[in-house]
């Protein structure tokens, strides 16, 4: 018998007792029912052989709206007028989709499972959409956590981030957990970071690269939150991250290392001290300057400013390199680059094309410095920095 007290003496095992020998007789009233309501829906489900995915509802779910809010938003979208449905229908539909998404979420945490599972028959294109959207993130959110440690502490700050960005807490959590999950899976893994992410999360190329950047930033804890860095977009950072992964990590020289794409090549960073000679040796510095100036005379709109500032800029760029041995300075890389190079140039109103000319010439003319022995090192450093600076140089 159902209902408490209906247990027979023998049924010491509680879990077997309830369904004994009778269909449910009477179900004790559950709470006070609203008077006048003739019927209440107890159960309402729809299961298709092919799982129905409504993209709009999926978006609402991902955005962290509750069923009630989602229904309200859908009503506002005018769907009732378009389809002639009632609010009750919409409610039931939304519930169904939310339930489906909830069941799918477990699989989305390990996307290859979604492909191989048998419970939901979903066409490949839809699977891709589900995964891609689930792992998509908001620009505003990622800017807040980029470079931060993906730890419990940061997770606690999600409340504030949610208030600040206007993204629901639920959505913030999802995005944060995604970052963390990807990080956990690919850290200490061999091979290319992007490839590893793609393999384990089946993301599109673009998104996998973004995640590589996020993981790379989180691992190296680059500071991105300073006020003077606010003008930079996630895209700017991701671009730089990609260049750095390609050229400055262990993976750039040896593919057989764990963590190869996530950690910067320590040896390389140590070696960067050798570049100091470019600014420490006065002759070398003068020679470098004259080479650049000769080459750029008449080609640069801001030639005089460049000429005046050359030593400062060069000192800035070389000192950034020399300091990278310290973790703290690695974290401040972007702050330093903006302070030492982007801001001075911007204050002199260099056009982007002039920056490009300058950097090209600045990097290339080092090859003509006879006394300088670290050409390869310089190329590895400047090649990347060149690309980064150009990307960082905007308003």
């Amino acid at each position: 018998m159902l209902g408490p007290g209906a247990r027979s003496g023998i049924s010491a095992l509680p879990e077997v007792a309830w369904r004994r020998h009778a269909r449910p007789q009477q179900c004790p009233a559950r709470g006070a029912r609203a008077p006048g309501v003739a019927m209440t829906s107890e159960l309402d489900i729809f299961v298709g052989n092919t799982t129905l995915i409504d993209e709009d509802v999926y978006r609402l779910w991902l955005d962290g709206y509750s069923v009630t809010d989602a229904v309200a938003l859908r009503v506002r979208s005018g769907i009732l007028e378009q389809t002639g449905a009632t609010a009750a229908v919409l409610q039931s539909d939304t519930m169904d989709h939310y339930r489906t998404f909830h069941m799918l979420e477990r699989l989305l945490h390990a996307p290859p499972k979604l492909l191989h599972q048998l419970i939901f028959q979903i066409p490949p294109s839809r699977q891709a959409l589900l995964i891609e959207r689930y792992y998509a993130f908001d620009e505003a959110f990622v800017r807040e956590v980029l470079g931060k440690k993906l730890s419990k502490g940061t997770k606690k700050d999600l409340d504030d981030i949610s208030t600040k960005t206007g993204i629901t807490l639920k959505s913030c959590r999802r995005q944060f957990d995604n970052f963390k999950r990807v990080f956990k899976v690919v850290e200490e893994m061999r091979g290319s970071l992007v490839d590893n992410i793609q393999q384990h999360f089946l993301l599109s190329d673009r998104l996998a690269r973004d995640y590589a950047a996020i993981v790379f930033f989180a691992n190296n804890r680059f500071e991105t939150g300073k006020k003077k860095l606010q003008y930079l977009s996630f895209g700017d950072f991701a671009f730089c991250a990609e260049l750095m992964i390609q050229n400055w990590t262990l993976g750039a020289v040896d593919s057989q290392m764990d963590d190869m794409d996530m950690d910067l090549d320590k040896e390389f960073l140590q070696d960067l001290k050798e570049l100091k000679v470019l600014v420490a040796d006065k002759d070398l510095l003068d020679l470098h300057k004259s080479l650049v100036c000769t080459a750029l005379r008449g080609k640069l709109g801001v030639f005089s400013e460049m000429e005046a500032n050359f030593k400062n800029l060069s000192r800035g760029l070389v000192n950034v390199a020399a300091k990278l041995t310290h973790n703290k300075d690695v974290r401040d890389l972007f702050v330093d680059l903006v302070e030492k190079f982007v801001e001075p140039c911007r204050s002199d109103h260099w056009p982007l094309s002039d920056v490009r000319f300058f950097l090209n010439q600045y990097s290339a003319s080092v090859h003509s410095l006879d006394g300088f022995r670290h050409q390869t090192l310089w190329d590895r450093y400047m090649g990347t920095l060149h690309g980064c600076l150009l990307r960082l140089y905007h308003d």
Partner: protein
Amino acid sequence: MPGKLKVKIVAGRHLPVMDRASDLTDAFVEVKFGNTTFKTDVYLKSLNPQWNSEWFKFEVDDEDLQDEPLQITVLDHDTYSANDAIGKVYIDIDPLLYSEAATVISGWFPIYDTIHGIRGEINVVVKVDLFNDLNRFRQSSCGVKFFCTTSIPKCYRAVIIHGFVEELVVNEDPEYQWIDRIRTPRASNEARQRLISLMSGELQRKIGLKVLEMRGNAVVGYLQCFDLEGESGLVVRAIGTACTLDKLSSPAAFLPACNSPSKEMKEIPFNEDPNPNTHSSGPSTPLKNQTYSFSPSKSYSRQSSSSDTDLSLTPKTGMGSGSAGKEGGPFKALLRQQTQSALEQREFPFFTLTAFPPGFLVHVGGVVSARSVKLLDRIHNPAFVGIMGNTRSYKLLDWNSFNSDEPETRDAWWAEIRQEIKSHAKALGCHAVVGYSESTSICEEVCILSASGTAAVLNPRFLQDGTVEGCLEQRLEENLPTRCGFCHIPYDELNMPFPAHLTYCYNCRKQKVPDVLFTTIDLPTDATVIGKGCLIQARLCRLKKKAQAEANATAISNLLPFMEYEVHTQLMNKLKLKGMNALFGLRIQITVGENMLMGLASATGVYLAALPTPGGIQIAGKTPNDGSYEQHISHMQKKINDTIAKNKELYEISPPEISEEIIGSPIPEPRQRSRLLRSQSESSDEVTELDLSHGKKDAFVLEIDDTDAMEDVHSLLTDVPPPSGFYSCNTEIMPGINNWTSEIQMFTSVRVIRLSSLNLTNQALNKNFNDLCENLLKSLYFKLRSMIPCCLCHVNFTVSLPEDELIQVTVTAVAITFDKNQALQTTKTHVEKSLQRASTDNEELLQFPLELCSDSLSSHPLPPAKEHLESASSNSGIPAAQRATSVDYSSFADRCSSWIELIKLKAQTIRRGSIKTTVTVEKASPVGDGNFRNRSAPPCANSTVGVVKMTPLSFIPGAKITKYLGIINMFFIRETTSLREEGGVSGFLHAFIAEVFAMVRAHVAALGGNAVVSYIMKQCVFMENPNKNQAQCLINVSGDAVVFVRESDLEVVSTQQPTANCQSSCTEGGPS
């Protein structure tokens, strides 16, 4: 020793973590068949174990092969405590026992646990070596094919249709054995699942024996049901139609007309335009093709006949059947004689088929049905209690020794009902019953047994051995085929079994036809229909006092006839409101609960060109003096007339008007005038001002004499038509729609509502029930809106009353899109499109390695693929707005060239060992492809799960079924003690149904199939106790596993066939 069963356990994947400490599992597998068990080695510490076992061999009788399921249990090895069960897989090996079906079962099966649901998958290979034993048909019936499909399966030809086979077996329900008190729910559920599996096997074997006795080789329209009778046991019963089938050797061998209704039926029959020669108009009378015979019999049983049934339609090509109608007289008599002699040898001339080979069906009389209320024996059977618990073998012993009388009792009950049906059919001048089905509804110890079918006269050609086929065919061909033959009355005009109103057939003008026709079968393909059809439902609730045993049974018996009557009246009214004159696929379900009875009738209404135009509905007030009242009445009348007009437009019913001749009397039959329908005289005042649009036609008169009647009229008008672009029907195919696309979506929807006990009046109940059904339909339309234009086919409603105040409605149907604009000439582009699609499918595996070699792979971003998809779907003519939330799944699935495939392959290649070689210049290029490093690309077997289509229909649009792999008949129990954690009742049931679908698909895929046709969810029993956070659900599903091939993939020969046949059917149809 006629069989050797061989099983190999290959691997597992996605197993649950069983050891919290290591987050891993030490899994091994037990393989059990009969009393023999084998074990694999323990595969330590893995969630993806690779057992790769030897072949486990079982040497068994074929009798056991038929009865027993193969039981595979996955366990977690535990050194110190008992091994924990992860879950089980039951595999029915029956499909391996007949030669033409599957030869091997091999694939990934979900590991199922009745408490936790699906927990990972296991890869199994099963084979059977059958030794040729001459005696093998003694006990077993290996070799008899079973089909759920209620028509002759597509790639077969019916040589002889033998007739009705039935069988039932009874056992004690393990859930009610005393041992159940001390065992775990899991053990109890598993005992039940296993028992039912065993009983199904045994039942099938016994039916097979009967078929062999009849010299048949197959059962078509096999319907197996469970009656959970609680204390008094578990009944598994089945009915079917025994046939001798011939496999159509090659698709080229084509014999028009006498062929089985195979693929071509899908193509041609639809171009039957409304016959321009049809005559219409003329008076019509409300009329029921039904008899009521109340024969109170002893044990509180009462049978009443009425209408009922269900199911599907496979169209047939034009031809046949009409001979009698045309020639009338002597030939008809001859036919009848032949049929009679052929049928009289049979105890029950019943056929579970709902669609027939051309020429099989000669006349249709009308629906016959019988119900009987029985009291289930409470366990007075002393042997029944106690003893059973200790023996865990459920085999035959149980019921043989203890309740040997039980099956006989049940047999007698059904025999009684069948006899009743037979006599009803006789009364209608028919010798046979087609579209026959049986059902039960049980509440506590009361059980309502129902049977229904359509009385019919059949062509003996298919019923006899040694038919001179050639000769008969010739004769049939000589007779010009008419498309109205089946409408002609089979009974004697002067000696009608019930008062009916006859007119001359509007098609041939030679034979008499009734004014309305109710049937339980599918619309014959050669029938001429005007406009489109629609789903018509009658819904009804009646309160009943709670009572015990005999008093209860009496109360129910007393209520039944009234319910039947009202359901019928509602159907008639709604039919008229739609402006139609015939119902197909009629299925009336009466459900009994503690304190109420529910009636739900579903059918597909159509306008048959051969029958007269239906009259309108008139409303009559009882107190004509009251002015405002009269105004109200006329207002209502106007609304009704408007609705009729609107419906006619909606369903495109525009029969050619005809001026002359009114045959027959326009007076409503007095028999109809009970409570709701009064004689016309009472309302004569209104007649002049009312219903001018329906002019001379006599109207159905509704008298509003009390609020009840008012409610009834209101409820008539509350049925909202489906939104534009949607159609629905409960037959296989929607009359009037012919250009189906290949996109299908089968679904199950379940709703349970709780009634507040405060306002339990009949009206409130009716309204609630009505709202429940209407809202459910509305929800379906909304959910499937992206498939517009589309039709819900085979809509199957099931009502149950699990508790006092709960009503549960379960709907299974399939949505099929059709092409509104394109007519049949589109085949070419269609073919091209799908060819393209198919090639992508097939070459998938080849393509990607190739692509990997090319440099472009890595730079293959998604935009092009997406564009491709988009352009493809826009080509298919779906408006962009609807594509937004598109369910364009089938087409998506078919063109799975999207980038996820690329990614997967990439991933695979990487795993093989990625060696980074380039570090230089290229890498500096920003955002380029520098990141993709060289890799070698050996292939990897890592394909996604194959798509398995499911449909309640007997065919797949745009495809040809090439092979039947065997019957799928599965029974699952799911239980939870953490209802809230699983998302409440909805979450629990949603997950369970999804799991059931998954398990069906996995079994089909393992048999080598890619679809299930004639899929049906026969039972979905749901019980909950939210207070204790518990719920339990039982689901029983069945269907036919098949292999289908897209029509476009078939060779030119076969694509030409339909055309050829089309021509032949056209010429046949032409001269009429």
